């Protein structure tokens, strides 16, 4: 093991990860902002009540329902799409870590990253 050499690679990996996260957040927040502007325009005069919890309509909670609403141009669905893109951003970072550690030939950390990825995948798929 060469601490100096691996340090350099880790540094590069982190820089790319940083860019990846930044790009993901930029994309997600652009979508959320667009959805937010549309949302405010549609619900301009109406009053809001978040005191009581009702849960969101089923269409906003599932991917297929979400795309149906998106095609109908529902602003809430646009915001929700942004939220999903945002959740995908750190997941993409972990996927990249698997690749990065593989390039460094660090099997132990490839395994570590894969475990984290498996937990994320399990939480995203089993909850639906």
């Amino acid at each position: 093991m060469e601490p100096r050499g691996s340090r350099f690679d880790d540094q590069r990996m982190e820089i790319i990860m940083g860019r990846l996260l930044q790009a993901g957040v930029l994309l997600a927040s652009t979508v959320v902002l667009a959805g937010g502007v549309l949302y405010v325009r549609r619900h301009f005069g109406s009053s809001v009540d978040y005191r009581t919890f009702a849960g969101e309509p089923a269409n906003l909670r599932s991917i297929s329902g979400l795309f149906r609403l998106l095609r109908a141009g529902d602003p809430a669905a646009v915001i929700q799409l942004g939220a999903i893109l945002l959740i995908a951003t750190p997941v993409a970072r972990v996927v990249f870590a698997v690749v990065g550690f593989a390039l460094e030939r660090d099997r132990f950390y490839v395994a570590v990253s894969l475990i984290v990825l498996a937990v994320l995948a399990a939480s995203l798929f089993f909850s639906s």
Partner: protein
Amino acid sequence: MLLFTLLVFAGSIGAGLLGALTGLGGGVVLVPLLTVVFHVDIRYAIGASLISVIATSSGAAAAYVREGFSSVRIGMFLEIATTIGAVFGAFLATRMPTRALAIIFGVVLLYSAWLSWRQSRCHTEESGHSSPWSDRLRLSGSYPDGTGRQKSYKVDRISAGFATMFGAGTLSGLLGIGSGAVKVLAMDQVMRIPFKVSTTTSNFMIGVTAAASAGIYLHRGYVDPGLAFPVMLGVLAGSLLGARLLVRARVSVLRSIFTVVILALGVEMILNGAMGRM
């Protein structure tokens, strides 16, 4: 509607700013703000907060990376514990009364404040101890010391740090916060990782941890688009500003801000929960 959105947006900027400066993530200030000031149901507050926490963590990432403090290995290794904890916490949250959530939230805030106060009183920067596993698990690293040189460090008490991280993940999933305070505690106090390395690495871990429970919240309808969008954009704007200030701010000043705000919010949350106003 417009006024409410603008006020939530402004409050979120403040929460994001403080969250980035302290390495906490905006959620710790945001959830009490939404519930206590804006009378939002704590479940909607948690959902919106968790989304904003991901934005905070990822948005500030590029700025933190440039400083060269964070450690991708320590982060990834400990994320095993935080993500499993987060899934556990999110399932607990859906089975718990909101009053209990409010009280737990308050207790967590008070405890963080106490830890932070104690930390600033007797802080041991260099202990000299390190676990033999620090090198074997490749957790040892180095960071710029401000004079252009690299300062190396090792990691101590890895299993205790790992267990604390599981707790941090559970709190994150349960309360919709980044639980950066507990993550920093696990690294800075338990594992004796330098403070700046701890806070920046914690920032990366927050996003991955929150993503592990965000899917569950989304499916359960905790994420309201009308509330989530001003919160997310506001916290993101505040956190980006905070990340720029972090490089210049002094660590002791950060801890002081951290302690006072956390203490006040903790008392407020417990009172609200105990009196059934949640």
